[in-house]
């Protein structure tokens, strides 16, 4: 047994209103730079829908993740090590920028410099890739809220096998939002695909990161990740991915996406697992068994045996305590209401989802029946096969059993709490009908509905004695760093890195002390808007003007 700790997340999809706040704050924090315009570490997809990049879930096309060979061993779907090296000169499975979208900005100068005219001046879109005028034909959320879904959502790879039924009932179709970040998998296929060995899993907390100094831009990780959550920065020539906001996690605060989530639907906590059993669990024969196999890898920190072993493995005591209190562990292991996204990719993802009951509730309510009665809801879950099958395609490799169980639990909780809220006695039989007791059902309700900040996020800090030296912490003296808003000798991105905190500090100082309008300066092509006050144009926001334009 080799016990390791993993920082994990659960998202309660019933609560997601699709406001994209998580995406926007994440982008501001991490990918507001040249070269990462199209990069969304966090994105929110409308389902049924194509996702981002388009149809990324169709692994027959993209060949991400792992497959089980006939001898029971796992291999990368896109081919083993030799094939990867043989195709290194031109990656055959790399999504092109059109599969994401061509990022653009607007020619705002036309508006600002326009003389007084009888018609409104128009700011034309300009491509951030070629710098030329372009027509906007797609973006990260083109099919948001089922926009154009007759055309687009019908191509959702997850509708395979049930597309007729969904199309047939399109007027009353179900819809929900799926926020996605990197899954920080236990068996990451991006890391396995990286020829340079630049992608690594941190042994302390399992966060999967790209070493920017070791990455050589072979782009195999982009193809290897079945979730398409590794992106290629086309300016620096390096791969970038969601970092689980490790500089925040290290000091015990939640990721930016979780912190700013309006619906408060994200939960962050630790999971203890047996690293020796990961490969075995990822190699079970039947796709439908993968969900339970992954659950079986997790260890219960409340078991004194496990706690002792964890301590022996060097996991600090406060981490073991945090694992006991982890909301993520409770949702995955105790209540069994959270499910992994696409276990069939066999990467053992660690961002799990509570599937939404609301499509079912909506249907029951629309028919005029009591949508908080467990009988009605149970019957509806049975009857509404299409949403359940669709959810099963997302979360359990198509096995409707676990999805049914979760939805029944959520439905039971609904009617159980209705009784209590109306002043009645809690009806134990409702909880028993889904294999729970009244107390744990109430606890589950508290965790799902009214959990406070410290209940939703149980994040042990990285060790206090290391705090000063932690990466990107602003505890360093900013005077120690040079801050020159120039590009390095070898173009954008070369040379030593300046921590973001220091860069912000310098920019603020520059603006406060300068007599002129100054924008947010930028080294290496980064457009830093973190403390831009709208005066002047941040350096790098617009491309350099050519001489003839001036």
């Amino acid at each position: 047994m080799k016990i390791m700790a993993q920082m994990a997340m659960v998202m309660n999809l019933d609560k997601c209103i699709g406001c994209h706040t998580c995406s926007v704050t994440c982008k501001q924090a991490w990918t507001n730079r040249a070269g990462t315009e199209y990069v969304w570490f966090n994105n929110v997809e409308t389902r049924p829908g194509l996702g981002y990049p388009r149809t990324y879930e169709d692994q027959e096309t993209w060949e991400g993740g792992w497959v089980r060979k006939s001898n029971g061993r796992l291999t990368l779907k896109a081919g083993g090590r030799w094939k990867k090296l043989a195709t290194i000169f031109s990656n055959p499975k790399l999504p092109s920028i059109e599969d994401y979208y061509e990022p653009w900005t607007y020619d705002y100068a036309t508006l600002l410099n326009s003389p007084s005219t009888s018609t409104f001046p128009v700011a034309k879109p300009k491509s951030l890739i070629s710098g030329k005028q372009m027509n906007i034909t797609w973006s990260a959320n083109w099919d948001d809220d089922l926009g154009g879904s007759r055309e687009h959502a019908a191509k959702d790879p997850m509708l395979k096998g049930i597309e007729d039924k969904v199309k047939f009932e399109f007027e009353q179709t179900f819809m929900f939002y799926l926020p996605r970040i990197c899954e920080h998998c236990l068996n990451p296929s991006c890391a396995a695909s990286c020829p340079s060995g630049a992608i690594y899993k941190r042994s302390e907390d399992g966060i999967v990161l790209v070493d920017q100094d070791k990455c050589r831009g072979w782009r195999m990780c982009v193809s290897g990740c079945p979730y398409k959550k590794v992106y290629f920065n086309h300016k620096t020539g390096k791969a970038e991915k969601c970092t689980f906001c490790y500089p925040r996690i290290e000091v015990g605060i939640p990721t930016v996406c979780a912190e700013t989530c309006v619906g408060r639907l994200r939960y962050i906590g630790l999971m203890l697992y047996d690293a020796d059993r990961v490969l075995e669990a990822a190699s079970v024969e039947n796709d439908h068994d993968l969900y339970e196999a992954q659950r079986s890898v997790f260890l219960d920190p409340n078991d004194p045996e496990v706690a002792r072993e964890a301590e022996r493995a060097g996991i600090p005591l406060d981490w073991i305590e945090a694992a006991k209190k982890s909301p993520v562990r409770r949702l995955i292991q105790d209540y069994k209401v959270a499910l992994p996204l696409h276990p069939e990719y066999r990467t053992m993802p660690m961002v799990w989802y509570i599937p939404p009951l609301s499509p079912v509730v909506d249907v029951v309510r629309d028919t005029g029946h009591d949508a908080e009665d467990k009988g009605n809801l149970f019957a509806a879950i049975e009857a509404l096969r299409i949403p359940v099958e669709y959810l099963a395609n997302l979360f359990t490799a198509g096995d409707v059993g676990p999805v049914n169980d979760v939805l029944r639990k959520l439905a039971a909780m609904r009617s159980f709490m209705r009784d209590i809220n109306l002043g009645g006695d809690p009806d134990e039989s409702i909880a028993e009908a889904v294999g729970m007791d009244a107390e744990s059902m109430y606890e589950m309700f508290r965790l799902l509905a009214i959990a406070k900040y410290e209940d939703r996020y149980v994040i042990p800090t990285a060790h206090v004695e290391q705090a000063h030296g932690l990466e990107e912490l602003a505890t360093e003296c900013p005077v120690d760093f040079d801050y020159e808003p120039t590009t390095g000798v070898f173009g954008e991105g070369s040379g030593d890195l300046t921590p973001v905190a220091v860069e912000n500090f310098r920019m603020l100082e520059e603006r406060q002390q300068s007599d002129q309008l100054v924008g947010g300066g930028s080294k290496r092509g980064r457009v830093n808007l973190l403390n831009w006050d709208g005066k002047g144009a941040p350096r790098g926001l617009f491309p350099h003007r050519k001489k003839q334009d001036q």
Partner: protein
Amino acid sequence: MSTFLWVIFPYICLAVFVVGHWWRYRYDKFGWTTRSSQLYESRLLRWGSPLFHFGLLGVVGGHIIGLLIPQTWTDAVGISETAYHWVAVIGGMISGIMVMVGLVILIYRRRTVGPVFSATTPMDKTMYFFLALVIVLGMWNTIASSIFGLGGSEGHSFNYRESVSVWFRQIFYGQPDASLMTDVPFGFQLHALVAFFLFALWPFTRLVHVFSAPVGYITRPYIVYRTKDEREGTGVGSRAPGRGWERVQ
């Protein structure tokens, strides 16, 4: 003059090559990348890049055989000059044509595809010029000497293994004999000089990615684990701790 060209100049270039790489690796790991442009365009790249790179592997292999293995060795195992010559010419022509075709596709792509062209730095353009020059000269030497018999005598084509190869090996022994190169055909002379200049340019271009060829991928475990404070000398943060502030083990 010949001492400068065939002794001093190669050593300067090799010194820049070695020190330059050390310096670049020390100070610009973040800039050390292939700078791939596949995201912008992959239809032309899918043909051009493998043709060019695989061809180039053949070319490099041919140069290793031709320059590093002395003729006495191949004679010793009974490979006649004629047999060697034809293997070299045929192998060289195949790889050379692959490289040329690939190069033409790649340069066409770089020039005509807008996003790719705008991602091209002045250093890239300089490098492309010299790289193409070396390749064209090498191709010319192969064709001119072996097929048109340029620089050859008495029905034999020019045998670079008696002059150029010897001189090349002598550079690494530390005693290059400049007189070996003075009578070599002009095309060979130019090819060697431009190649050495390309070596000097190498560490400052994207060519550094050659030294990142991920051969370790074959043997390393699929999943890499790292702890936060593993990297030597860097302590737990992104910078090395100040002297006297290292962590107590």
